[in-house]
């Protein structure tokens, strides 16, 4: 009989604290969308491009644009809060 070796899992695979995805809307029709650029070159342009496609193909409503200005750092909480209060959905993007 070979003795078994017990080995411990080195990973943390999920959030230990509450961290849930927002409920996905069934339709984008008429929804207000936030366009959150990250300060990278062309990040505003690519968001506008995606917005135009989604508006034409899925009837997205008005857009609210903002820019966190620094691609290297997480979005400041007050900016996120502001978008969350005004928008139904938010798109963000990188761009180089």
């Amino acid at each position, binding site marked *: 009989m*070979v003795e*078994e*070796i*017990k*080995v*411990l*899992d*080195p*990973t*943390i*695979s*999920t*959030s*230990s*604290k509450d*961290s849930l995805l927002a409920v996905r809307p069934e339709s984008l029709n008429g929804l207000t969308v936030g366009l959150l650029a990250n300060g*990278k*070159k062309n990040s505003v342009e690519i968001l506008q491009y995606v917005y135009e496609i989604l508006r034409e193909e899925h009837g997205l409503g008005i857009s609210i644009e903002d820019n966190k200005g*620094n691609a*290297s*750092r*997480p979005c400041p909480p007050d900016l996120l809060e502001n978008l969350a209060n005004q928008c139904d959905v938010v798109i963000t993007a990188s761009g*180089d």
Partner: protein
Amino acid sequence: MSSNTTSKTYSFHSPHDAAEYFLDQGWTDGLPINIPTETAVARFVEFSGRPGQDIIGVEPVKNREITLEKVAINAVMSGCKPEYFPVLLAAVEALLEPEFNLHGITASTMGAGILTVVSGPIAKDIGINGGISVFGPGHQANATIGRALRLFVINCTGSRSGEIDKATLGHAGKYTWCITENEDFRPWPNTSEDRGFKIGSNTVSVFAGLSPTQVSNHSSQDPENILRSFRDALFAAGPNQGEIVIIFCPEHVQSISRAGWTKSQVRDFLYETAVRSDTEWGFGSIPPGPKPSGSAMTHSALTPDSFTLLVAGGAAGAFSSVIPLWASGVGSNSVTKEII
């Protein structure tokens, strides 16, 4: 024994089977590991004198609570000795500080490593090399402490190559990168003292280091000409660096200190010498955005204090090093923690 472990346990018929399983799961850096048995991990937990469930910190972007036991498991895997564990715990605490921006530096295409600098008497006590071939192989403490931090990043934050880690190139320091300062040739305060800790304190500092550029100058003994040799390496990092690390080799620093120069004078000189017009910077267009141009002069560093100056390396050879930091040294701030 860690019978009260909170980690999932796997059973294997042989160490080889366990090691192969870990490799297959992507839980390693691609090199063979020591398998983290319950007994081996318990030795680290016991050495710390703390429960394995202790929370060392929370990874701020993914909200993951990092327990002491998870750090211990990755330490065993890397080949650390239990006496290195206090250094690792302090280093992990430093990595989890929001200003270090661990997620950014380990996800980015820019490909930073974690330059880990241990200062104070503990470095000699546990055998961290700060002398000959300071970045090279052959020293268990350097090799395994740096590796444990990389395994921690891979396994506890999920930043593994091709998944969250999207580095275009990366560099060899992403496998392991832990050093100490060369206490035998240091004419200046060390990093710990520079950052306000008492003389004799044990600290660990983490920097989001890009690939080093070696600077050679065997023909000058005067501080001005030695320091002028650093200009091109500093220019390669781009303008307006918020933080940048320079490792002075003993030969260079001895010449500089013989002339009576302090760290502060060296910083001021480097700041003033590494400056050029925006049109010259524009040739490389290093920062994202429009190409700079014009006759206005821009320095390589934001301020003289942007330079962190260390002394390390072997006594022979006039080779120093410039280590630019991730995102122009402003996207991540280096963090120093006391080793308890």
